């Protein structure tokens, strides 16, 4: 083997080794990042679950009903019944909107 060939071989080997080492390091970094992200996701999933449960608890129909009863004087809200059904024509501005559409 001639010297130039040897040097080329040597350079290639060193370059490949160096490149592999960098790839290896980057892979490890990415793996750690993924592990961290999974950990964060896990925590967020847990938080989300807690928030969802809290939301359901705070908006459960029994709680809402109790709130409307407590604040009836202020809000005048009552549960919907058959009397709350009406015709679409009874909506305010319904006729005007129909006229606009026709025009």
């Amino acid at each position, binding site marked *: *083997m001639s010297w130039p060939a040897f040097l080329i071989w040597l350079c290639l080997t060193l370059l490949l080794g160096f490149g*592999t080492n960098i*790839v290896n390091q980057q892979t490890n970094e990415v793996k750690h990042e993924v592990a961290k992200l999974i950990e964060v996701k896990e925590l967020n999933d847990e938080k989300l679950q807690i928030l969802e449960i809290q939301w359901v608890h705070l908006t*459960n129909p029994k709680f809402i009903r109790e709130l409307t009863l407590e604040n009836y004087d202020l809000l005048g809200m009552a549960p919907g019944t*058959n*009397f709350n*059904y009406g015709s*679409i024509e009874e909506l305010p501005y319904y006729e005007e909107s129909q006229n606009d559409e026709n025009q």
Partner: protein
Amino acid sequence: MASWTGIRKKYFGMDPVSTRPIRLKLLVFLILLAFVAVGIRITYFAIDPGQNSVSSPTNNLKKVFNRGDILDRNGVLLASNLPAYSIYAHPKEIDKDKVDDFLDALEAIDPPIYFDRDREKQKLLSDKNFAWIHKRISPDQSQKVNQITIKGIYTGEREVRVYPNGRLAAHVLGGTSFGEEHVNKAEIIGVAGVEKYFNNLLNNNDSSRTDLELSIDIRAQQILTEMLCLGIDEFNALGGSAILMNVHTGEIISLVSIPDFDPNRRDEFITTDAKGADDNKCINDSKNSNDGKKLDPLFNMVTQGIYELGSTFKIFSAAMALDKNHYQRDSIISTRPIEIMGKQFKDYRNHHEMTVMEAVARSKNTAAIRMALVIGNQAQRKFLMDLGFDKKSDVQLHESSSPLVPSEKNWNDLTLATVSFGHGMSITPLHLASAYAILVNGGYKVYPTLLRANGIEQGERVISPNTSKDVVSLLLNVVENGTARDSRIEGYLVGGKTGTSEKVGADGKYLEDRNFVIFASVFSGEKPNYSLVVMLDEASTGDGSDYERQAGHTVVPLTGEIIARLGPVLDVVPENQSPESNILASK
């Protein structure tokens, strides 16, 4: 200064010129070796990129929340999981002089951790290797426990089941308990309700988590619970139950039994004197049942309670007679007293002839007997068995009872007569709701289910579509002109049949002054989509006279109010409106 060539020649006896080819070959070999090593390493990376065991997100999610959620038909969360902690001790390691200080510190934690101080002290003073102190504390409380510096006390992570709607749908959901427990993990197992029935599915460890979608509508559940509570309070009843069912699919939209319990702390309700009922606002503490005990809050009256459901059965006698063409709606039938096997049956008043429609509306026992007589014993028994009274309901609850039905051998004329008006045979309110669903849905069998259905699965035919139509008109007439007039609501056409049944005392005899009142209804219109059975235990409008204890004055107006509130939630459009032009607008 000595050169490297000179040193080698002097100390190692190597001639640089003569060894040159060998060195070159060695170098080439080493370079090749390096290439091979690098190649192997690259191949290794390519084959196993995740060698540092970074687990997938799915696995991690599964690790945190093992048990599947339970949702209502609109996707509202009914049961889910939360991270929690347990407190455990290694009593052998504990300095016994510090036990009191530890318990003082534990008692001072806010929000408080409830525990039996004497019992836990005894555990900590013992020489045991291990003892549980508390099995369910929040992460916040756990942090505070860890701040108490004492050797031998530890906290461990686990998962707990929570029911964010509290008591709503308690009897459907049931509850859970801990199975196999480790310091850092505890298995959750269902002990009642759908939690128990679907335990394996919810705890499925083989594949991804499975959530359960129920047929229950939590809004309807709230309305039924609230209105039933109001009814119990208004009529000074011991308790009550209600079930709402889709007559085509058999889906149970709502199931309520009061007294109920909080599934978040179900264990507290497992007591012999049912003390858990005490904190239920709608139960009057001063009233006790005939044996002096309060009702058991864990008892599901809809699926476990079997009752003689009285006059609600008369519609079955009419349906049989109409289906076999022995009578028509307008046929004349006698309501004069009748004697069967030496026993005379008669109604309170109006012993004249009337139409079948009128007889059902006025709830005539003698008419029901006459209609059953033309059918015969065996046909009557077969018809009732076809309605599903021969066995436990198929509903997905372990808490369900079989009806009490006289055997085929003992089904004589007297049985025929009593069963025709709802005595001598006991079923659950769930059976009754299913039977009414069959009668009004065109005559097809329905299978009650707590799971959301994807469509209508047509069961076998029990009665003809024409009979079904006639039965609906009979039921509508009961509300329009009969014993259930107080359930009339503007806009909704309600049909139904009232029933009153006397309770049985400890000696096996009927208690004349204590009864159940039932109203089995269907709504709305001539093609009803829902059947609703409401029952009150010992309800009365006043001092408890016969008149004041009638279904027509108690459970009937209550049902009317319930349907008025349920209508908008179930998208039942009032009869005087066309579906296209309707809006739900506050007036």
